[in-house]
């Protein structure tokens, strides 16, 4: 039993140790603290992609859109109605899930490609809705003057809070992955028919899982709004979603820490890239390179095996994976 526990929570422990070690180094620098908070926020968004794509096989192109729902929800209730950010938090967790679930169900039998296109469309429609939201969302101008969190009103406190939330989400995520539901999701991703034979209501399960992942994005949006104190239609757009997907994929979407690593890597990369028009080439190039060398991402790849396998023959696949039925 303890061995099981250790293996499941070990990556989280590693992350806690790294954050704890980094904190005194950066505590004096508002700049690094600010970057650290952003890495944490992007980690949450990327984890949401990791859950949806890495576990359930749904490539969500809308993490930033779900984040925007959360961010606007808290921005609106705190600035327009003067409610507590905690009310905003509840909405930020709930609303994205409420949008995500029926959407996933609407794409009837949930084959992954159309659903990811649907998330893309959702992103675009939501951006339009935010722009047309006039008084509610602030239209094209957005909402400024969002109150910082009273219980985390310094950058340092935000650093602690946001990484704390990342660790909590990782803990919940690790537990969920290692449960009957988590196993069923993995099976359904690989082979919906097999999952059905296991007694799984595949569309409902995947849609629920997708909704949970949307909630994680909403949480990121909540932190985002209260950290930046400004939320506008250009803030969490489809371009951000694509970047977040990149983070998850590069780090390893199916692993616990992959999305976090990806978020840290890409955030630091933008910091050190020269400010120029060529940035997209570097991002696109990195993505293609990772996909070619290690399609499961940096942490999702067993490097030792990969190198050994180069000289060896490919092992035979047990299941001729074909989701297209041959009736």
């Amino acid at each position, binding site marked *: 039993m303890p061995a099981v526990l250790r293996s499941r929570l070990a990556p989280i422990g*590693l992350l806690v140790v*790294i954050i704890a*070690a*980094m904190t005194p*180094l*950066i505590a004096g*620098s*508002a*700049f*690094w603290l*600010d*970057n650290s908070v*952003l890495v944490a926020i992007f980690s949450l968004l990327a984890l949401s992609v990791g859950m949806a794509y890495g576990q359930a096989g749904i490539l969500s192109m809308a993490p930033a859109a779900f984040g925007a729902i959360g961010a606007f929800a808290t921005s609106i209730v705190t600035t327009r109605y003067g409610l507590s950010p905690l009310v905003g938090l509840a909405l930020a967790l709930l609303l994205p899930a409420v949008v995500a679930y029926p959407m996933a169900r609407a794409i009837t039998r949930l084959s992954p490609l159309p659903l990811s296109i649907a998330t893309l469309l959702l992103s675009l429609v939501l951006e339009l809705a935010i*722009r047309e939201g006039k008084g509610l969302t602030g*239209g*094209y*101008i*957005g909402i*400024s*003057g969002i109150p910082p969190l009273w219980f985390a009103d310094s950058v340092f406190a935000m650093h602690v809070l946001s990484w704390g939330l990342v660790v909590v989400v990782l803990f919940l995520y690790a537990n969920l992955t290692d449960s009957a539901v988590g196993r069923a999701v993995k099976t359904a991703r690989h082979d919906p028919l097999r999952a059905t034979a296991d007694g799984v209501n595949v569309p409902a399960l995947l849609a629920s899982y997708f909704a949970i992942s949307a909630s994680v994005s909403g949480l990121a949006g909540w932190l*985002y709004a209260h950290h*930046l*104190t*400004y939320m*506008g*239609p*250009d*803030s*969490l*757009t489809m*371009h*951000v979603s694509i970047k977040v997907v990149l983070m998850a994929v590069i780090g390893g979407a199916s692993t616990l*820490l992959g999305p976090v*690593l990806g978020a*840290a*890597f890409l955030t*630091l990369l*933008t*910091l*050190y890239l020269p*400010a*120029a*028009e060529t*940035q*997209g080439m570097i991002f696109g190039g990195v993505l293609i390179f990772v996909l070619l060398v290690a399609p499961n991402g*940096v*942490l999702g790849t*067993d*490097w030792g095996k990969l190198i050994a396998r180069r000289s060896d023959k490919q092992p035979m696949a047990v299941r001729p994976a074909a989701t297209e039925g041959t009736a």
Partner: protein
Amino acid sequence: MKSGWLGAVASGAAAIAVAMTTAAHAQDSIKIGAIYSLNGPAAPFGVPERDIVEALTKNLNAQGGINGKKIDLIICDEQTNPTEAARCATKLTRQDKVVAILGPTLGTGALALAPIALANKVPLLSPVGTIPVTSKDNAFWPWVFRTAPSDTLIINALFERAVFKPQRKRIGILYQEDAYGEAGMKLATQLSKEKNFEIVAAVGAPLSAIDLTAAATNIRNANPDVVLLKTSAPALGAAFVRAAKQVGITAPVIGTGSLNQRPFLDAAGNAADGIQIVSIGNWDDPSEKQKKLGEVIVAAGKTPKGYAELIGSTGALAVFEAIRRVKGEVTGPAIRDALETICGFKDTYLDGTLCYSKDQHEGVFQDTLITVEVHDGKFKTVK
């Protein structure tokens, strides 16, 4: 599996070490930050803004800088995204310790990073028209200065010239779906109630639209006396005038500011003939000052594009002037105070004067606006 993590930790630690050593630099130069959109949809504005600010800084340093101090310009790419704009502001203020920030390209970016300027007591000189950026309700108001004509200014001038003076009653509007277009629509709706004219057609177009024939048909069918073009993107403006010609709109078309540039004419072809634009400059018939700006741009190896260089240069020159006026140590607050003394300043490339004071940070006024008309593929200034 672990090696990836160790690598990440090591590079992070190295980055911190670098940051800490650079922060300890002594002040033998004056650091100014510049945040522009070099990627994403706003790049057509951000790129020329960066180019002119870079060129002006280089020239200034070649002439010995200000009071013997060189200007160290640090550029950051906001990627048409407020998050990145705010990140840029944090980096520039906290890590590079700049004393003033030029930019960003977009109004939403300005709103996102202004609180950071306030927190770090650094003035922000923003080349945006977005109205709320200089609203006095903002806590950050004291630190934000506008270096471009505001949307209110431009829209009022547009209505004055296109509607009130010729006493036209039926107005058709094509607006782009963003802050700029929305501000125009809002003001137009308000004015139509006060001034007794009718908006017979108002059609929005997303920035990404490439074909506007249906939109133009809609406007043509409403039979307006004049069509107002509220777009800032040259591609969109050109797409509309082409469509207007094709569907046969005969009413005059009058646009604003940033259409006054070469790419618009190139993309519109001879469909642009007769279009009028309310603007702040004219590269085909430049004033003395703009000729000089043109020379700066050409000397830097670029071609003048139009609006973006004018408003970009204004911010740079204003901050240079403010630094000249600072007595003692050059700090953010000192520059801010000095900026408020700049009024009637003529050494920008704008025609007309720049003016900031203790209670207004708008900078650019009515006297800088001109009207140009397109003739045979060239802009002609209408006197």
